[in-house]
Every structure is written in C-alpha cells, then in structure tokens.
C-alpha cells in the first residue's frame, strides 16, 4: 500500500500573508520524518492542507496516492494529531474515542486498546476537562492511533509530556516507523528529534529550506570543534595557530579549536609539555544545523546573545 | 479615584475596545434601533386630524420603538464583555494582575456602562431625530399631535431615559454573565428575560398582564411615555426605570457575591 505523503507546488494565502509558498516534498514510509521550522513557518497550515481541512490556492497534496478528502475511511489510513487540546472538556475520554471510532467503522474494542497503549486506561471514564496537559496529549495520541493507520502526522507530540513520557514516545515512534509506517512529526525541540528522526523537512516563511536525511545534514554542517581547558592558554593558542587551524579563547583557561582532531591536539600538547585539563569534542547538534538553516527565515527573533 | 481603580478601569477599557465583537455589537445596536424605529414610523399613520379628534398615540414612544430589538445586541455587548474573559482564560490574568476581584468587577461594569451609555445615547437620539419627519409625514401633526422637539422636557426625559435603560440592560447582562460564566447561558437567559415575557404575557388576562409588565425588567421602557393613556402603568415613567434598575442591581450584587467566593 502506498503510504507516501506527496506535496507538489502547494500554496496558501491568508489575506496578504503567504502562509505556504510553492511547497514540494515527499514523506516516505519506514522512517520518522521531522517537519520543522520557526514559529509561523507554515507547518500547521501545511498539515491542515494535507488533511483537506483547508483548501489550497494552488498545488496538490496526495496521501497514499489520492487526495485525503476522497478517502472512504480516512482515519484507518491516516492518524493525525493536530491539537491535542481540541477536545470538549465535558466529554469523557472514552466517549471522545468512541465517536471517532464510530465515524470510521472502527471496532469499539480499539478504544480500550489505544487507551491501554497510551497508559490512560484508568482514566477512560473521566471527563477530558480534568486531564493534565500530559494526559490530554496522550489522549490525542490515542485518537491518532485509533484506526491503526499506516500513516501518522503528529504536531508537537511531546508537548507536555514528562521525561518518562518523552522516552516512551520516542520508542513508540521508532517502532511504528520500523513497522514500515510513515511517521511525520513536527517539533520545536531539535534535541528531541535528534534521537528520533531519520529525515528532516525544514520550512521557513512557507518555503522549503531543506529536505534531507539527518545524517546528511549533520555531515554538511560546520565541522566539529574541540573545547580545551588548559592553564597554558597562550602557548596552546600559538601552537594551534601555527598548524593553520583556528582557535578562539573562550575563558581565562579555555579555548575552542576548529580544524584539529582531539588526538592531534593531545599529541601537540604533549609534545610541547602543555598541560590539558579537559579535552572535549563538540559534535554539531541538530539544533545547530537547524538554527543555521533557519537563520534567514526567522520572523520572530529574540535578542541575539553571543554564543560562546 | 484611587490609582488602583484608575488602572483597573483603563485595563478593562482597553480589553473591551480590543474584542472584535464589540465593534459589531455597537454597530448592531445603533443600526437595529434606528432602523426598526424608522421602519415602524414610516409605515405608521394616523387619521386623528381628519377625524378632528385628539389621537392617543404617544409620538415619543413611537419614535423609540426600535429599542425593543436593539436590546438584543446590547445584551450581547454586556454579556460578551464578561464571558470573553472566561472563554479565553484572560480572567486568570486579570485576577493575577488585579488582586482585588471586586475592584475588577466594578471596573468592568464601569467600562461597560460608559460604552453602553454612549452607544445607547447615539441610538436613542438618532431614533428620535430620524423618526420625527417620518411621523409628521404619516399625519402625526397638530392639532391632534402637537410637534415634539428635542428641547421639550418630555422628549429629553424619554431619549435620555432610554439611553439609561439600555445601559442598565447591558449591566444586567454583565452581571448574569459573571454568575453563569458561559456565553450561551448568559445571552439566552438575558434575552429570554427581556424579550420572551413581552410575548408570553399576551397569554395572560388583562389585569395580571399589567401587573407582570410593571415588575418585569422591561418595565424601564415606561420612561419613554410622554402622554398618559389607558395602558399607562401606575408606577409612571420613573417608577418603571427604577424597577429595571432594581433588577440590574440584583444581578450585579449576585455577581459580586459569586466572584468573591468562587475559584477562577
């Protein structure tokens, strides 16, 4: 079964704002794809366009080879979590899942199954208004999983979860992807995606900024740097400078070196009797990659701070 | 006015102004009141002069009849000013920012009252002015119907009093909204209380009906009466307005009592 999400030339304008601008990408199955971008980049709008909730001005969005709105039992093919808090507070959790299931002829037994899966079995009879943020999030997840769909689209699934929950969901997403499902996840926390996502689609101001695997992005990022702590700062700095690599002083007794491996620095130091107290390799994180990619497409930016 | 009160009033005024529905309701109040008054005046006519008798229509009342429907958006104004806080959760911000809950209610009520009075005055005044020529055209002229001008005491009382009535109505709605905290419930209750009885009371026989009309919240509309008639309530124009004021006071006191007690 085709489990791809394919978008071609998707455009959506709200008044004067171009929320989505000629977006084209495909999300394949068998892996976790992160869908990221700064606030207001158009992630939620894109997801709503894919689900047929909003109408695109131009372009096409196909899920499993056809438009979402043509599907007879959409919840059995696509499980979406757009806004976990979009639940009537006076409705019991079980009733919420029940009506969703009934809308797509999903057996009643699935309701208890997914409640069990997300750990909400004990509170199924409670009204959603009494749920904490984490519980609400889990309920939204349960709703997405109700139809056992091969495609999952989750908007900020880790929002509100405690550390244990975050570990749990990371495992869940990876296992779902390992089963061959298509998993699309948006997130603000790059640190979360680093351990979870295999592929990244980055958008900014409605436009595609990057569409590549995480490994590829990390590889293409600025080289790793090495943080060194030594009492012989001046000596080390001139030594490193002589090799052609760059070095920056970051503290009274610390420097950051780019262009040399830790082994090389250690060899140099020992060869010149320079004492090393700390030698740490700083690999580029996904967050670094992301910030670099989206630097030019930020709409709302807090005051820049020196990153030392 | 104390510094705290002044800050509270400013905060409430800014909130009221920035809620988008405020613009719509204000426009609706004026449009509906003036429009319906004008419509009724345009289609009404009298033969009093031809018959050579004095008619018993109250020209001033006839010029302000649109108020019956203008009540509906006015209720919305008063209710939404209060319930938009609960719906969007800003009430928590309000109460954290201004720890004195009663002061907040007072500030909110004041902001609503000022706005309602302003809009009500405009609606009332325009109603009167626009309908006069229409009524004259329909035969409401001397000697059966002496021309009424805005400078006559009775007209001033009616027009200003109508604005006050509308303000009381808006405050009634704010009070109810503060107690029930739910837009639908509040709007339903207040519109029901102000509109439905007029219709429902038609079912009751004459004396009972008159009694009910005098104690209903809509009794305040008697402020518009300028000429005594067979159906003039014994309480008189000011008595009626006092009844409406009493209803409003009751709900505001109820709101003050619940707002001080409940968790937010």
């Amino acid at each position: 079964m085709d489990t791809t999400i394919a978008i071609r030339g998707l455009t959506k304008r709200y008044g004067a704002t171009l929320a989505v601008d000629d977006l084209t990408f495909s999300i394949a199955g068998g892996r976790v794809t992160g869908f990221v971008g700064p606030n207001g980049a158009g992630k939620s709008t894109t997801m709503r366009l894919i689900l047929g909730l909003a109408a695109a001005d131009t372009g096409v969005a196909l899920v499993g080879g056809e438009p979402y709105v043509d599907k007879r039992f959409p919840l059995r093919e696509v499980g979406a979590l757009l806004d976990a808090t979009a639940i009537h507070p006076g409705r019991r959790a079980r009733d919420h899942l029940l009506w969703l299931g009934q809308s797509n002829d999903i057996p009643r037994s699935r309701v208890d199954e997914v409640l069990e899966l997300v750990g909400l079995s004990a509170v199924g009879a409670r009204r959603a208004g009494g749920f904490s943020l984490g519980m609400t999030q889990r309920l939204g997840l349960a709703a997405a999983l109700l139809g056992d769909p091969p495609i999952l689209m989750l908007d900020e699934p880790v929002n509100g979860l405690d550390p244990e929950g975050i570990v749990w969901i990371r495992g869940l997403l990876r296992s779902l992807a390992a089963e061959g499902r298509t998993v699309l996840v948006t997130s603000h926390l790059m640190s979360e995606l680093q351990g979870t996502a295999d592929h990244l689609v980055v958008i900014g101001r409605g436009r595609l900024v990057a569409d590549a695997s995480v490994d590829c992005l990390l590889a293409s990022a600025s080289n790793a740097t090495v943080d060194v702590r030594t009492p012989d700062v001046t000596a080390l700095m001139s030594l490193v400078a002589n090799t052609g690599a760059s070095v920056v002083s970051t503290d009274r007794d610390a420097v950051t070196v780019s262009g040399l491996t830790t082994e090389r620095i250690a060899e140099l130091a020992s060869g010149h009797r320079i004492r090393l107290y700390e030698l740490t390799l700083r690999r580029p994180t996904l967050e670094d990659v992301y910030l670099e990619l989206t630097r030019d497409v930020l709409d709302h930016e807090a005051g820049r701070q020196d990153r030392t | 006015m104390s510094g705290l009160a002044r800050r509270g009033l400013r905060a409430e005024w800014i909130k009221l102004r920035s809620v988008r529905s405020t613009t719509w309701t204000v426009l609706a109040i004026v449009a509906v009141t003036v429009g319906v008054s004008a419509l009724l005046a345009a289609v009404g006519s009298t033969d009093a002069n031809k018959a050579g008798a004095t008619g018993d229509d109250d020209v001033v009342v006839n010029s302000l009849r649109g108020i019956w429907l203008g009540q509906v958006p006015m209720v919305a104004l008063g209710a939404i000013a209060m319930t938009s806080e609960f719906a969007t959760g800003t009430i928590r911000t309000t109460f954290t920012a201004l720890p004195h809950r009663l002061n907040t209610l007072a500030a909110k009520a004041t902001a609503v009252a000022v706005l309602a009075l302003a809009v009500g005055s405009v609606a009332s005044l325009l109603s009167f002015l626009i309908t006069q020529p229409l009524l004259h055209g329909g035969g409401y002229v001397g000697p059966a119907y002496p021309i009424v001008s805005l400078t006559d005491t009775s007209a001033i009382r009616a027009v200003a009093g109508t604005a006050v009535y509308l303000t009381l109505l808006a405050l009634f709605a704010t009070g109810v909204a503060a107690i029930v905290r739910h837009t639908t419930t509040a709007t339903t209750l207040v519109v029901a209380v102000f509109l439905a009885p007029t219709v429902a009371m038609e079912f009751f026989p004459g004396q009972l009906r008159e009694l009910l009309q005098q104690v209903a919240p809509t009794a305040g509309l008697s402020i518009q009466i300028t000429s005594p008639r067979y159906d003039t309530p014994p309480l008189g124009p000011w008595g009626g307005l006092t009844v409406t004021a009493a209803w409003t006071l009751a709900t505001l006191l109820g709101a003050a009592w619940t707002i001080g007690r409940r968790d937010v």
Partner: protein
Amino acid sequence: MSNGARTITRALRSEWTKLRSVSSTAWLLLTTVVVTIGFGLLVSSAVDTSGGAPGCVPGRPGCGDEDVVLNSLSGAYLGQIATVALGVLAATSDYATGTNRATFAAIPQRSTVVIAKSAVLAAPVLATGLVASAASFLLGQPILHTNGFVPEQGYPLVSLADPPVARAIIGTALYLGVIGVFGFAVGTITRRAGSAIAITLAIVYAPAILSLMLGEPLRGWLQRLSPMMSGLAVQRTVPRADSVPIGTWAGLGVAAAWSAVALVTAIRLVRRRDA
C-alpha cells in the same frame, strides 16, 4: 451499500455519541420540558372564561372564545428558548472546542456531517416535545375545568383522541424540532454561540413584539412570515379575531422553510470555509 449510505450511517452514529455525551444536552431537553409544562400550567390557571354565559350555545355570540387547547400548550412559547439553545450549542460547541477539525478529518464529506448533526438533534427534541406537549395538555385540562371552561359555558370537553387536539400536540412537537434545527443552522453559520442565540431568539421573538406595534395589513404579513407566529399557529383549535392569519399546517410550513433555508446556507458555508 453505496458509499453515500454507509457514510451517513457512520455520521449519524458518531454525531449521536457526541450529542449524548455532553451534559448540556440532557439539561436543555429537561429544561424545555419543564418550562413548557410549567408555563402551560401557569397560563391554564390564569385564564378565565370572561364572556361565557351559563347555558350558552358554543360558537354563538354569548359564549366565550378562549382556545383551551392553545392556552394549555402555550408553554412552547417559552420552552422553545431551551430548544434553540440546544440547537445552537449542538453547532457551536464543536467550533469552540476545536472538535470540528477532528470531525471533518474523520468524515471529509461535510454536507453529510451537517445533515447528520441536525438529524440527531431533531430526534430527541421531537420526542421530548411530544412528551411536554401531551403532558401540558393533560395536566392543564383539569385546571381549566376548575376555572370554568366547561361545556355549560360553551367549552366542550376535549381529549387527546380529538383530531384537532392531536394535531396541536404533534404540531407543537414538530415546531420545536424545526426551531431547534433553525438554531443549529444559525449556529453553524455564525460559529459563535452568543451571536447565534441572539440572532435566533431575535428572529423568533421580534415579529411578535413588532406585531404589537403595527397595524394591518403589515401586521398580518409580518405574522405570516414569522417562524414562531406562523409555526405555532398549528396549536390553534378555535378561530379568533386575533389569530395569526395562516392555516395551521401552512404555518408550520413557514417555520420549516426558515429552517430549511438556514440549513442549506449553513451546508454551503461549511463546505466552502476552511476548518
């Protein structure tokens, strides 16, 4: 089964679950019943037989012309407020809570969803309306008799078996269903409970208030076009000078027309708007 039939079944099932799983539904249905019966009894106790002389001949001058059936069913004039509120909430709570997105993601065929929503709303309203009307009538009769509405005064005894009475009771229930759907349609159009309630109640009550201020022929036209005044003409069993000038079922048809137009408009808007 065709694609369409299955979808409507699923939509009916899920929308019914949604409606019955919020407490406001039961409360508003109960309120409708209580207010309808309560006000009906109030009116039944308050009316008197002014005009009827003992031993007069029904239908002839000298006999009273109160419509005992209509009077006992007059509670609907107030009870409908709760029905309108129920209809409005059935439409707006999905928008207020954001559930509308999940709904249209579950069933992308939006017109089917709206129709299902109005159907699951109408059914319980009709049922409770029937109960409320029948109870109002049955409980009101003894009171009216005590007040003097007896055959000797020109008021023959009536019972549920009489066709006009059955028509009045069923018609009242149908009216409540129609007005509930009207509120639902307005709520779907405005998406806001406050404005929907205000607009619907204004449309329902304004003509009645205005007709107190108008003369003929405008008054007659206004009443004929008004959803409530025409709609509740179905309760009439005694023609009177102040009766709404429209046939009993034709009147209900006017109310139904208001509802239908509003519902069609709502469906078109729902299909066109972004969720």
